């Protein structure tokens, strides 16, 4: 335990404070699976999870768009859905995931990035594919752009079949960060049409030229095969539920934040910002405790009441 960690440990926070702003990613950090909090009325994933379970059972592809404004937790929700999908498939941690940061309007380039990303993941996990498929993947850039969708479709299907036929069956999923235009999703549907896999897209719910209009996603650009998850800012009660839930998963001590104060300060704010502020407030308080005469590990020293929160927040919330 380092000197810096000590205050956290004394307050039972062995992994420092539980309010991290980085997206939850069980694929990279299995412990993140435990950090997921079901917040009533936030993502409302019941229907989507039902669809994913059905798709997993019927070995069909599933397509989900996670839509929201900046910092509303789109990537975390997308990763959570991927994790649940693999659970439904019964493959657990035996899966291959690639994240593609879509950076331009050329569908071919991000589709290619997805295929190459999957191949890299397969190789990193030392999974054995048939040599013919490996050769095809190695020469995937040679596939003419004019016919790439159907050729990629065959490759994706072969990949899914071969991963499923391994001694320890595997499945794959793709996360496309950002949808510039609805045609992206239509193209992905063609490519992964015959592959039992989960394809998730995140979408900026803004009205500008660098993102697909939300209406266009809702309309008949693609049929009911695509599920859309809408993420919004948190309500006051959701903020409290989130802060309390995370705290309880990290510490056995009492929840230190005053609910009214949190409600007052953070309602109608996006989840990532709320997490960041909670973390900063806790750090600030721990520092205050450390510098003050309050004896630790008495948890009363951490208590943050309404008045304290309102007075302290402007000190840490600066541009």
């Amino acid at each position, binding site marked *: 335990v380092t000197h810096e960690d000590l205050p956290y440990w004394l307050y039972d926070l062995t992994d420092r404070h539980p309010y991290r702003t980085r997206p939850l990613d069980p694929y990279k950090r299995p412990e993140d699976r435990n950090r997921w909090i079901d917040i009533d009325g936030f993502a409302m994933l019941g229907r989507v999870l039902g669809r994913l379970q059905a798709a997993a059972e019927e070995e069909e592809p599933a397509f989900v768009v996670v839509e929201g404004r900046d910092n509303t937790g789109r990537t975390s929700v997308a990763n959570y859905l991927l994790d649940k999908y693999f659970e439904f498939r019964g493959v657990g941690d035996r899966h291959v995931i690639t994240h593609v940061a879509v950076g331009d309007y050329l569908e071919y380039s991000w589709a290619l990035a997805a295929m190459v990303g999957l191949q890299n993941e397969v190789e990193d996990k030392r999974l054995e594919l048939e040599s013919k498929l490996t050769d095809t993947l190695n020469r995937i850039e040679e596939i003419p752009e004019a016919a790439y969708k159907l050729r990629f479709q065959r490759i994706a299907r072969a990949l899914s079949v071969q991963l499923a036929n391994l001694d320890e069956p595997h499945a794959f999923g793709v996360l496309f960060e950002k949808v510039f235009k609805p045609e992206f999703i239509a193209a992905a549907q063609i490519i992964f049409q015959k592959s039992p896999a989960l394809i998730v897209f995140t979408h900026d719910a*803004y009205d500008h030229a660098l993102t697909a209009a939300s209406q266009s996603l809702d309309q008949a650009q693609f049929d009911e095969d695509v599920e859309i998850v809408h993420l919004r800012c948190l309500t006051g009660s959701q903020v409290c539920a989130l802060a309390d839930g995370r705290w309880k998963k990290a510490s056995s001590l009492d929840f230190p934040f005053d609910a009214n104060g949190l409600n007052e300060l953070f309602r109608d704010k996006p989840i990532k910002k709320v997490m960041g502020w909670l973390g900063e407030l806790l750090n600030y308080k721990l520092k205050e405790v450390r510098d003050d005469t309050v004896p630790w590990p008495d948890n009363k020293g951490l208590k943050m009441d309404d008045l304290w929160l309102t007075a302290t927040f402007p000190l840490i919330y600066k*541009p």
Partner: protein
Amino acid sequence: MSGDRLRHTWPERNPFPAQATTSQAEQPADTSPDESVSHLPTAELPVIKRLHEVFAAYLKEFTREGMNHGQVAFLHGDHGTGKTHSVLYLLNHVAGEPSKTGTVTYRFYVKAQDNDFLDIYRRIMGQLSVTALRNLSLRFLGTLSAEQAGRTFGEEAATSVLERLRENPDRVFALYDRMVVDPGAVLEAQASELDRVVGGREDFQRTLTFLLDPALETAAYEWLVGRNVATRDASRLGVSGPIGDPQLCRYGLQLLVAMCARIREAIILVIDQCERLIFDENDDLCMPNVGLLASLVEAVPRENGMLVLVGSEDAWRVVPRDFRQRIGLNDLLSTILTPDQAIELLGAYISAVTGETAAGDPYPFSTGAVHALLTASSGNIRRLLQLSWEVLDQAVRNLDQAVPDDLITADDVELTTGQGRGGIRRDEAERAIERLLLEEGLTFERPWRRGAVKADYAVPSGTEPRLLIRIMDAVFYDDEARGALSSLSLLQQVRNEGWPTRVVLVVLGYCSPAVLSRLKQAAHDVIVYDGAAATEQLRTIAEQLPSQTEQASIADRDRLDEIYQALQLVAESRDQEVRGLRSELNSLLSRISETSAPAGGRGNWVQRRQQLLDRIADVRELRRRDQLADVETAHADAERDRRNRYFVVAAVIGIPLFLVGILIGSWPIQSLSSVGAVLGFAGLAVGLVFTCLPFTRRTLWSRSLILLPLGACITAAGVGFFIFYLGITYPYTYTDRPAVQALLIALGLIIGTGCVLAGISVLRPQPARKLSRPVDSFERLTQVTRSYVEATSLGTYQLEAALKHADPHLRYAGIVTVKSSELRDRTRRDHGSDGYDRESDPPPLSGRRDSYDRALARQFRVEPTVILRREAARALGTAPPDLVEAVIQDGIRENIAEIVYLIEIAKVPPVSLPTGNDQSTSPATVLAGWRQSAEGADSADNLLWYILKHAINVDSEKEFWTALKDSYGGAQDPSLWSRLRRIPERSLRQAATILSPFEKGGLGTFDELSMISEIDNMYLFVEQLIFYRELSYGDEQGPS
């Protein structure tokens, strides 16, 4: 004669520019002053002074909050009057560091070559490097991010963020990472702004954003500057293709201006020789380009940028009136010189070389010679200086021979100009050099550049050039030394590279012995280009080139340094001379300026006032035409509907009756003709359906669907005739039906013919026919309407029906009818002077009149044309007070502008203005408020005071404004002036807006108000105050 002269010294070198034309390469739009024009001896000619004022006004105003703080100017004049020189001088004058007060960071100068607007766009945008454009985009994003931060953290935080971003624009990404602002929200704000600027073209926002992505930076830049981009790159950027549409170019320029203005940097766009855009190759007006320029003239100042168009007199004359109106007061005329000005100008140039100061003495030119020069040059400054160079050059050659009394006379001038070489032009020399190189079979590159080494022409040989040619154009005589120094650096660089390259310097027109001898020591060849002889010199060099294996050596480094020092001294001494020349020219041309411009600010105001009055008259005329055009369009539509209605009735009733008659005559129906019968009745049914159903009828009146029933009926008619033919063949079978048959056929013919005749108005009375014709003026409309009403004796019910008629001419009859006036007159006669004696028994006609007034009030609310709304409002002036008050309240609440006409004339108790109305400065609210107030009972003069006090909350007394007005805008009374200065300029501008005859919603736009002349006077008075404020800036004493 020589005894009278003050000068006795001939200039030791020719002081005039051999090539008195200013050229400017289009350069990167950077912040530094341009060395190639910074040394130009420029004086404050009247036109430069005025343009300078426009520049100054722009730099003072463009940072103000909001829009429309830009400027636009059109500098026009005949060729050679110094337009290009003026604008380049001023562009250079305002060059400076970013955000430094009084300087312009982004200066774009482009000279049109033809009427290709896309080329103009490319050459303007091409002056920005990738880095500069990226920086602009990033700073634009930074400004929006700071504003976004300001909404969360407050103004102070926004300012602090903005300052940090100004130091390092890339910090905007840190703001995103730290979640201070949401990138999506910033892009959304950007999209909202761009929507206005680029007409919703998403391509621009995409490329601006991808410009910040290193992977797509180059492609985005290429697209934004109008170059071709590969299809794949276009797909990656999400754009439809390269910018090829001139409209997109316009949007691109607007975007450039808007971005600069948003980051609080001044931007000046100059399009020189814009006549090449305005006229096409056949010298016809190129309307698409005129439209584009007109759009820019509107959009650039709106986005707080400045646009300067430079063009010929012809160009200025042919552009449409509204184009010129948009230029407004900034049309700047570049004029020719007077004889006195010419004498002083030449004297100033000569003094700079001789060191003798003698105003008004152009020695060695005689006064006659100057007049001859002036005649030969037509007063054109450029040509005058060019000819002076030629004449003096020739005189020096002949000095030993025949210049009597050492004085250049008119004869000498005529002799020289008669055989003059016409000046040495750079393009002429370039053509000669290129022709020669081609004739010699030498491949060349132009312009040529390797690293820092630049030349105008290079004949390559492998990786090294065999021959480099550099052209030195001495625009003004101090250029000569500068050009020489610059050429010396070329020689130095060639030597440093160790190339065996022959370097030839071509000096255009003139090179003084001092400089020439130095250059000859340094370069291989120096050719003073003055025509064919110089070309032959160059030919000799070129001919030697292929066989030349050993190059003449360039002077060694020490020698070059020595020559450099010597030329530096020459340059410095000439700099001093130039400073003296500039000073003298400035003094001279200030005097010119004083004599040619109206004296003082008041003189300018007189001119400006006249321009405003002209513009008001123009705009009113246009408005009247537009309003009448609206009425006439609606009338034409109604008339067409009426005719169609008659024709359809003729088709669906007349023709079927006719056919039924024939069918009856043809009975019994034989198997062959049963089809015809079915079709005939089907046609009848279709016709009836179309006639009876309002929806189909509405469609039918105005659409080609009328062909459907007509076609059906004609088909039926054809079949019917066929049957009739059968009937004629066997007449004995139809003997019992001729009477019914004849009756139906006759009835069908009568109805059909009657409807057709009614449709073309043959059956209408003469006044109605006149009323149905189009009119060319409002007065004519009033006259035919009154004739119609007189002739038709419409009753009240018909008048009410007329108010709802589709034809605006008839609606107008319902509004301005003589009958309604008579109706009121009768009522007045019977029931008291005001006609509204409600306490007594109701008058016999009051019920009917009330009904008519209510119909009129209803029509006022729903009337689509401005003229009729206005007339309805006026007609309501004599309606019962309670109705008038209700109509006024409704009109204000529903924002029906023409309610002001009723407010002006209504004799009603104070109107209680609608509550919650936030349009405190709307014309109706202002006028109603004023009429209710104590001031309203006074005179129209008090309206201005009311507006300032109540609508704009300026705290001042009525007496002050009266005194101010009496004192000619306070210009003559310092005490009034100092009080006036305390009133914010913004308030004056608000008052001008409320009274404006130009801006939508201004009181002055209600052209038919009876107090319109008073309103115009008030508007001009406020404009005068603003004018003086602008004129005096910080002057506490008022305008002189």
